[in-house]
């Protein structure tokens, strides 16, 4: 199967084309089987290819299928590759993607545009698989832009709704800013290496040693890495380009789960991890990645504290967790970042799908203030969502505990000109863990516990169909066991099997050794992290279940802070004032009114008006009076003769007549 790796991305593309072209008149069942069938087959093919790859024991599988661009000494081909990092990504994308497809058949059953939805969703799968399988930056960029396109289409799925189509545009435009950086980064890399193939770039460095001018604090590599990270910031919603992700919740919930939680938004992390060799040679860029990731994690978590829309809370939580992943990459723990990427894909997809199930049960209600006491009525949704919450909050033995723990450990141990930076990153990461536990349990308590705050006569709460519950349960199991690869770390002499699996990719860059002192440190940090998570959850319990009146009091006493958080630090307003308004002003007054209306239209209309005016003046010579024509004939003859005989500027011929 490995030789036919191209089948894996091709199947969803076929599904997309079939549903998009012919699906409109088909009943939902056929559309379902095409969509689920193509992604499911793709998942099976991927599994088989992975099995073959792992069995063969090779470090890297690389195959050139055809040349796409050839110009001079530049070649960009449709080349796919598979290594351990790709294995993780491909399985997460196809596996979680397939589950979400199944869920969506239940969730979207009554929607208009059913086949359009699945066509877009399959198209997304195609581009995402291209992104993770690509063997060069150019092909990766194709997938990168393609998932952006699918994301735009799916956010604006309800395109008749103004807010949805606006959110789609916002996502697309904000991503353009990042992509601009990404392209510049690619150009810089090409200038430095004369190629954009991953292997050619990565091995050229290790084999021949870095040219001095490439490394260093402000070398080409630092800039290239920072520019690529700018692209990652856009795609993975990091400061300052995160603003599109919360708005992207306008899309249908399965889209939020698949694209804006589990897969697409992690593309930035994947790119940074894929380019880890470059980043390892650019310590300044690494530090920037770590700081931006950590700051985003904390910043987004604080906003998540006060949001009341169930999906908005999860959106800010996603931004925050992506920050964790970048923090891991920034401190050099790439495998920890990818580990968190994987566990996050499980539990965050589950959270979104469960939230979708809640919304489904409540007949479209998304405000947690109008829910409450749902735990008995939708028991399975409640249990699965609770599992995911325990996982994201970092309770052992759920998946999030292990991945988050290894990130915090790496941050704690990291060294950049002394240990203080590492301690600061660790402290902020720990604070974020506290906030995470608090806002997630706040969400659970407000939604499922406490008094019922909705009108039972209007809302008929009902559990979701099996097609929606089955993926929830599978993901719930994964959210528990997904982290156990790393569990043996806590046993004496145990190994982190996930990191070991990724060893061939990230190699010697990772800090080695989990013995002795490090082992006890690890245990202590884990205990601290667990205590913090427990504290956050208990505080949420106290504030929202035991003493609900205290919550209002707290809001009143912290009024300015509360309103600031509720308005998301006024970042959108600030961007509107600093970027959008001036741009609109320039577009309206300079480009539209000055350049277009006055300049271009003015020139065109001016020529027309001028011609009319000249004609209007000249027509008076056409008097219709025969004698005046006679005069003109004579005048013309005189002028011609005068020119021929008295031409003052030398030269031998005038009007073709030899003088």
């Amino acid at each position, binding site marked *: 199967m490995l030789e036919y790796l191209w089948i894996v991305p091709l199947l969803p593309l076929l599904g997309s084309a079939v549903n998009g072209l012919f699906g409109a008149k088909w009943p939902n069942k056929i559309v379902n089987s095409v969509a689920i069938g193509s992604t499911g087959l793709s998942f099976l093919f991927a599994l088989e290819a992975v099995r073959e790859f792992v069995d063969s024991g090779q470090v890297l599988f690389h195959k050139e299928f055809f040349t796409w661009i050839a110009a001079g000494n530049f070649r960009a081909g449709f080349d796919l590759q598979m290594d351990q990092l790709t294995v993780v990504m491909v399985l997460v994308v196809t596996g979680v993607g397939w589950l979400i497809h199944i869920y969506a058949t239940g969730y979207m059953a009554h929607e208009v545009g059913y086949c359009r939805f699945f066509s877009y969703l399959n198209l997304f799968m195609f581009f995402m698989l291209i992104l993770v399988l690509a063997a060069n930056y150019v092909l990766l960029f194709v997938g990168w832009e393609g998932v952006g396109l699918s994301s735009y289409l799916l956010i604006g799925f309800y395109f008749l709704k103004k807010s949805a189509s606006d959110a789609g545009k916002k996502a697309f435009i904000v991503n353009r800013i990042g992509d601009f950086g990404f392209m510049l980064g690619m150009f810089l890399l090409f200038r430095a290496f004369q190629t954009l193939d991953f292997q050619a770039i990565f091995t050229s460095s290790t084999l021949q040693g870095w040219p001095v001018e490439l490394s260093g604090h402000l070398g080409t590599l630092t800039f290239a890495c920072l520019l690529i990270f700018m692209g990652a910031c856009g795609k993975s919603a990091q400061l300052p380009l995160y603003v599109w992700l919360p708005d992207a919740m306008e899309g249908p919930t399965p889209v939020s789960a698949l694209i804006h939680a589990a897969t697409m938004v992690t593309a930035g992390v994947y790119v940074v991890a894929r380019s880890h060799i470059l980043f390892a040679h650019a310590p300044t860029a690494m530090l920037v990645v770590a700081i931006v990731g950590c700051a985003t994690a904390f910043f987004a978590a604080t906003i998540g504290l006060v949001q009341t829309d169930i999906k908005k809370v999860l959106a800010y939580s996603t931004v925050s967790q992506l920050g964790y992943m970048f923090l891991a990459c920034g401190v050099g723990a790439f495998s920890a970042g990818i580990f968190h990427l994987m566990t996050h894909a499980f539990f965050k997809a589950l959270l979104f799908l469960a939230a979708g199930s809640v919304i489904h049960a409540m007949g479209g209600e998304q405000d947690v203030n109008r829910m409450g006491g749902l735990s008995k009525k939708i028991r399975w949704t409640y249990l699965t969502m609770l599992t995911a919450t325990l996982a994201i909050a970092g309770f052992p033995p759920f998946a999030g505990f292990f991945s988050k723990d290894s990130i915090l450990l790496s941050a704690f141990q990291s060294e950049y000109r002394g240990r203080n930076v590492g301690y600061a990153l660790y402290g902020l990461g720990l604070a974020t863990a506290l906030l995470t536990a608090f806002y997630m349990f706040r969400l659970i308590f407000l939604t499922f516990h406490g008094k019922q705050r909705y009108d039972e006569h209007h809302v008929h709460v009902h559990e979701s169909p099996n097609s929606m519950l089955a993926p929830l349960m599978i993901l719930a199991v994964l959210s528990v066991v997904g982290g156990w690869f790393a569990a043996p770390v806590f046993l004496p002499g145990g190994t982190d099997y996930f990191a070991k699996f990724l060893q061939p990719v990230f190699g010697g860059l990772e800090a080695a050794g989990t013995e002795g002192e490090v082992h006890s440190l690890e245990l202590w940090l884990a205990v601290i992290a667990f205590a913090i998570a427990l504290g956050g959850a208990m505080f949420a319990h106290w504030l929202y279940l035991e003493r609900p009146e205290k919550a209002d009091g707290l809001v009143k006493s912290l009024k300015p802070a509360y309103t600031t958080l509720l308005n998301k630090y006024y970042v959108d307003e600030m961007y509107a004032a600093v970027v959008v308004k001036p741009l609109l002003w320039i577009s309206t007054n300079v480009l539209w009114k000055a350049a277009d209306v006055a300049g271009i239209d003015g020139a065109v209309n001016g020529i027309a008006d001028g011609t009319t005016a000249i004609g209007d003046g000249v*027509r008076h010579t*056409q*008097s*219709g*009076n*025969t*004698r005046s024509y*006679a*005069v003109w004939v*004579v005048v013309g003859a005189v002028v011609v003769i005068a020119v021929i005989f008295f031409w003052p500027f030398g030269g031998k011929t005038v009007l073709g007549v030899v003088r």
Partner: protein
Amino acid sequence: MVPTNYYVILSAILFGLGVFAFIFKRNIITIFMSIELMLNAVNLAFVAFSQALGKLDGQVFVLFVIVVAAAEAAVGLGIIILIARNRQTLNVERVDLLKL
């Protein structure tokens, strides 16, 4: 022998009279005659130069001009008769259908 410049001066005078009449006369037949006058003034110049230079080219041209003038007279007079019939006038000032 009469010097060539006399002929040329006479030709210029005749041509000038022709132009003058062409512009200022109102009667269409007079205008027509002034055109003939100009043509013949040019003929005179052609013949004079032909004799002065000892070449026959000028005289050949004159024959052409006479033929063209005859054809022009035939067409022109036909037009004039039509105008006279349709508008009962020979005054060019009143033949102004093209006027805006």
